[in-house]
Structure formats: C-alpha cells, structure tokens
C-alpha cells in the first residue's frame, strides 16, 4: 500500500473523530447556546475511565478491574455524563461566560490530575499497550481500515441521533431559548433543566466516543487531552456552520485535510518542526477565510431548518 493512501486513511479517520466531537458540540453550543471549552476534559474523563477499567497489560496501577471493552465504553460514558452534571449544576445557573470559564478550568484540572495521579493514570508515561476492538480479525496493517469503518459508522449514528433531536420540539426549544431565555421562561419553560440535561447528554456522548480517539492514537497520555482538542473541534464547527445540521461533518473534513496536508511535505528534522507549527497557521488562515467570505459557516442554521412547518402532516 502506498504511503499516501495510508496517510489519507489516517486523516479521514481523524476527520471522522472530529466530526463526531463537532456534532456533539453543535448540540450543546450551536443549539443550546452553552459555549463549552471543556471538551478535552470530558474526553479525558471518558478516555481514562475506559483505559483504566479495561486494560490488561499494565499492572503497576492501583486499579485494574479487567472489564470487557463494552463495559469500559459504558463506564467512560457514565463518567463523562457525571462530570458534566457536576460542572453543569453550579455553572449553568449563572449564564454565559461563567460556563465558558468553568469548563475551561475543569479541562485543565482534569489534565493536571491525569499527570499527578500517577498510581492511577501512570502520569506522563500513560498507557501504550492495550488491545483494540476486532484487532484479532485482521493483520496490523489492515486494522486501520477497520478503525476507519468503525469511526465513520459512529459518525453516521451520531448524525442521525443529533438530527432527530434537532428537528424535535426539544431541539426547537433549545434554539429558541439560546437567543432569548426570558421569553422562554415567560412561556413556562424550565430552561435551566433543559440546559443541564443537554450538557449531561453531551458529557455522556463525549465519554462514549473517547475510546475511538484512544484507539486511533494508540496511547493514553495527558498530552492527548490538551485544549488543542477543544479548539480544533470548535474551529471545525465554526467553519462548517454553527447550529446547522451537516456543518460539523463538512467542517471537520475540510479542516483536517487542509491542516494535515502540511505533514505530507518531506524534509529534514528541522523542517518537520517548522511544518508542525505551520498546521496552526493554516488552521487560523482557514478560519479567517471562512469568516470573511461566509461568516455563518459553509452550511447554516437557516437552510438546515428551512420549511419545518412542511414536515408536520395535517
């Protein structure tokens, strides 16, 4: 297999993972108006809980329950949901920027914990030997295709679930109170309850998909869960079109292909360092370009929900 093809498979797999994250972010931020900067933290909670509960090879940690993989995914999801509940209840009562600050701080606290709780997380060394699902079915070189299929299957499932929510009366209410909370409350809507439910759902989902990220990278270390993950997800959503339906997927594909293309250039070690930083310059340029030409993103909310009245029969 040619190097270019292998590279492309990797990029498309990673794009799929970011598409999933951007879709979840779209639910909580695009529709419900909760500007979450703690994506990396929720991912870390899900990822670490998954790896700690399921890994079989590292026995120098204090907790090794050796759970089956499905139980680990479930545990990671529940942990993500619980974390969202714990940060959501105090910070969603006060609005807007407090939520932003709290989630950002939460992600940093989680990262620091993952470094310092070495007896549980193996510190900065982390976990690097674990089995992945269906790994025994194929050769190591064929496994990248399995993972590609698995990731894009999850993209499809998440897309349909989120679309179902977005087009329901529940989603309509979120998009309403996002722009005008007092009017929603004056109609008898418990907007805070809806916000907390939505954030917990986002936490459950981030926690559940964190293992995909772990399987792709093949290690679990604190450096995996820096705010870079949060900001790449945000950029993908903004480029694709915040509050739209297909935007998060489109944005993730374009963003990942454009930024990863820089690593295609062959060069010396010094060159590689330069190219690594070029990625962020490219990311910034893409963002500026889209904001300049199409500020609402490539897809948009208006088109995504146009003709809603036609879908009700009768």
């Amino acid at each position, binding site marked *: 297999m040619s190097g270019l093809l292998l590279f492309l498979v990797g990029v498309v797999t990673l794009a799929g993972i970011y598409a999933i994250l951007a879709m979840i972010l779209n639910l909580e931020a695009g529709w419900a108006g909760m500007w979450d900067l703690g994506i990396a933290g929720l991912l870390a909670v899900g990822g670490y809980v998954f790896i700690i509960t399921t890994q079989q090879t590292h026995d120098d940690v204090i907790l090794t329950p050796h759970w089956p993989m499905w139980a680990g995914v479930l545990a990671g999801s529940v942990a993500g949901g619980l974390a969202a509940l714990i940060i959501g209840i105090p910070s969603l009562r006060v609005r807007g920027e407090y939520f932003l600050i709290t989630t950002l701080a939460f992600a940093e606290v989680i990262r620091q914990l993952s470094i310092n709780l070495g007896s549980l997380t193996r510190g900065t060394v982390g976990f690097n030997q674990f089995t992945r699902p269906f790994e025994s079915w194929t050769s190591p070189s064929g496994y990248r295709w399995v993972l590609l299929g698995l990731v894009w299957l999850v993209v499809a499932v998440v897309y349909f*679930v989120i679309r*179902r*929510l977005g087009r*329901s*009366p*529940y*989603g*309509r*209410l979120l*998009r*309403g*109170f*996002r*722009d*005008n909370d*007092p*009017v*929603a*409350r*004056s*109609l*008898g*809507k*418990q*907007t805070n309850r*809806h916000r907390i*439910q*939505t954030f917990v*759902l986002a936490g459950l989902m981030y926690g559940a998909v964190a293992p995909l990220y772990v399987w792709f990278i093949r290690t679990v270390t604190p450096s995996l869960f820096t705010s870079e993950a949060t900001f790449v997800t945000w950029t993908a959503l903004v480029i694709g079109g915040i*509050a739209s339906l297909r935007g998060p997927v489109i944005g993730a594909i374009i963003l990942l292909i454009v930024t990863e293309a820089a690593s295609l250039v062959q060069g010396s070690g010094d060159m590689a360092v330069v190219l690594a930083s070029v990625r962020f310059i490219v990311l910034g340029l893409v963002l500026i370009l889209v904001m300049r030409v199409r500020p609402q993103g490539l897809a948009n*909310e*208006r088109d995504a*929900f*146009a*003709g*809603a*009245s*036609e879908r*009700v*029969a*009768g």
Partner: protein
Amino acid sequence: MTAPILDLRDITKVFGGVTAVREVSMSVQAGSITAVIGPNGAGKTSLFNVATGFEEPTEGHVLFQGEDVTGLEPWRVARKGLIRTFQTPTGFPALSVWENLMVGGTSDRDESLWRAMRGAWHSGERTTNQRARQALTDLGLWDRRDTLLADLSPGDVKLVDFARQLMAEPKMVLLDEPASGVDPASIGRLGNVIRQVREQNVTVLVIDHNIGFVLGIADQVHVMSLGEVIASGSPDDVVRDPVVIEIYLGRSA
C-alpha cells in the same frame, strides 16, 4: 363585583437606593382590558417584573386567582396562566414565525429530551400545528410562516410575539409596550387583536406610551408617576383628571 384575577397588594420594589415602585396596589378584573400608563421611569415595567416573578418585590404580595404567587420562579407563574411579553428583545429570532408559535404552544411533555429520542411527539405536534395555523391565518401571517422572525418588520414581530404568548393558553396576558416601534397602520391591527383576545376570556393588562392607543382599548386605566399610582378610573375620567394632565400629559405631551 367579582374577585379580581390579579391583585397586587402594597408592592414596593427598591433597587439599591432607588425606589422604582412605592406601595402600589392594583387589582385587575377578570375579562377586562386594563392599562397602566405613565412616563419613562414611572415603574411600570418593574411592576410587571414583580407580577411575573422576574423580580422579587421588596415588600408586598402578588395574588393571581386568589393564590399568592409572590417570588415564584417565572416559569411557575407562567404555568399558572399569567403570561407576559417583553418590550425588547422580542421572541426567538433564529426560528421561523411558525416555529415561534409552536414553541409557545408545545407542552413540557412533548419538549422532553426523552420524547425527542423516542420520536414520540408527533401527535401533540399535529394538534399544536392546527392552533398555530389558525392563529397565523387570523393575523394574515400564514403565508409568511417560514420566514425567520429576524427577517420580519417590527410591527409583524410584535404580532407574532403576542400570538406566540397566546399559544401558551394564558388566563391573563401582560403586554409590555406592545405598540412601541410599530408603524401606525399596524397599531390599529394590534388593537383589534387585543380586543379579540378579550372575547376569548383572556384578561389583558397593557402598559404603553402611546396614550391614544391605550385609551382606545382599555376599560380601566391606572396612571403611574415616579413609582406611585396617581390616578385610576375609566379612560374618560383619567384624561380629565387635573393631576394627570399636570404630571403626565402636561409634561411629556
């Protein structure tokens, strides 16, 4: 005389050192159109905020249908049938006209996350759609149902605003300056809509600057100035009241 639907008793609201509302008592008869007029800073909106739970009164009580609702959260007050509008900003700008009305008319049950997952909201949606369609047809806005609220003229926005709050089936509506920013042609339409609402046994309490508009539709008028009610009576009595002419009409007209 029957018991009032809304009874405000000795309401005082102090912000910092400023008394916005001072010992105001006001009762609204069921089925009436009652107006509160007064210059800027008279305390009209503060009184509304207190009545609907958006502000807690410093002193006094709010009774709705004989029940003490003082200090209840706004959504609880709303579910008892006391629904208000806001002067600005109005409504859900990113939703279409139709979606705005649907949010107003959809029950808590049909809006739950659980029902959204199961997709078990379609029958409720059809019923609400019938009502939304009727309301929009009556307003002459059915053809514009898919227009986003943000793209509508200010006059039409106010009509949609009113229609959306009515979708929640209130027993009483509090309208905060419904005619502000509305062109003269639409004001007439708005007045008709308010009168029609009363026909359906919804009590109306309205505050506005536009004296002509308010006096044309109200049965009972309260005049506020500097946080106090300075005159009450029928529109005819109020315009003849020398204190009102001095304090309100004399100065700002």
